């Protein structure tokens, strides 16, 4: 496939047309895989011998944590595209993804805290991973607040893109700093590409379905919200044009 053809979707009209076509399918797929994954995980997996039934929380905790980070990565990429190629859709996609990423971060934090209560005996521990997610959440808040605070759309896109870039570096730095500051209670990553080292198969397959569901849900939401941002932007432009007379 010719990668250059992808840039055609940087045109707002084309983007809306194309996403309108695929959005229903992605939404259905997202709902189906979420329902299948969560039902499978919740009803049809055994308990872990150490963690008991709390192991069922990973079907939400792990995918949401993954998406919390991937959403920021996506914003970083689209911000770079905006800075380099000045495609408005790219900047608006970053704006559209931020609240989704923030909610994913909250879910990861909440499920982590609920999980931590029986496992560690406390709701909140200043564990490096939890702390890093809290900091990530602060970055999301700042990013969204900056978008909301600036009236001119292009100025806001420029400033938030640079904030996203700088923020990414500092988020990474914070991750290492936090690790250094407190060696944590958190267990190692429950997933890696090498399945052998992972959680057992019974937990693994429903987890994969759940992750797919979260990814699809994220894509569907970002498409929908980007469409909304494009339309809102065009509305503002038309209103401004009216005022100019």
């Amino acid at each position: 496939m010719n990668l250059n053809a992808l840039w055609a979707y940087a045109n707002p009209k084309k983007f809306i047309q194309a996403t309108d076509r695929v959005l229903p399918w992605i939404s259905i797929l997202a709902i189906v895989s979420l329902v299948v994954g969560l039902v499978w995980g919740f009803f049809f997996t055994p308990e872990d011998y150490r963690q008991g039934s709390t192991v069922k929380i990973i079907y939400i905790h792990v995918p949401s944590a993954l998406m919390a980070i991937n959403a920021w990565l996506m914003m970083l990429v689209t911000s770079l595209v905006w800075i380099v190629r000045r495609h408005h859709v790219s900047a608006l996609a970053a704006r559209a993804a931020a609240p989704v990423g923030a909610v994913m971060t909250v879910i990861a934090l909440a499920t982590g805290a609920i999980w931590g209560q029986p496992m560690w005996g406390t709701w909140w521990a200043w564990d490096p991973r939890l702390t890093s997610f809290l900091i990530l959440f602060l970055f999301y808040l700042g990013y969204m607040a900056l978008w909301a605070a600036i009236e001119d759309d292009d100025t806001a896109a420029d400033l938030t893109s640079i904030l996203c870039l700088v923020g990414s570096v500092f988020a990474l730095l914070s991750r290492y700093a936090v690790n250094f500051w407190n060696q944590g209670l958190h267990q190692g990553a429950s997933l890696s590409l090498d399945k052998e080292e992972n959680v057992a198969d019974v937990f693994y397959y429903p987890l994969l379905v759940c992750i797919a569901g979260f990814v699809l849900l994220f894509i569907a939401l970002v498409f929908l919200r980007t469409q909304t941002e494009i339309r809102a932007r065009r509305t503002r432009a038309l209103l401004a044009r009216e005022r100019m007379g």
Partner: protein
Amino acid sequence: MMPDLGKYAEAVLSSYGVSIALLVVLVWASLRRARRVKKQLEDIESKAKRDG
């Protein structure tokens, strides 16, 4: 039908509850805003077309 969650039932159920509720709110808010903005744009566009 309901699996036996043992002593951790509260934790498991509340984390599913909280997460699903948050996701539903997010989807609902996105859909609501999408519909509103779409309608607003259509109104303005038809008005702008009429007025030239």
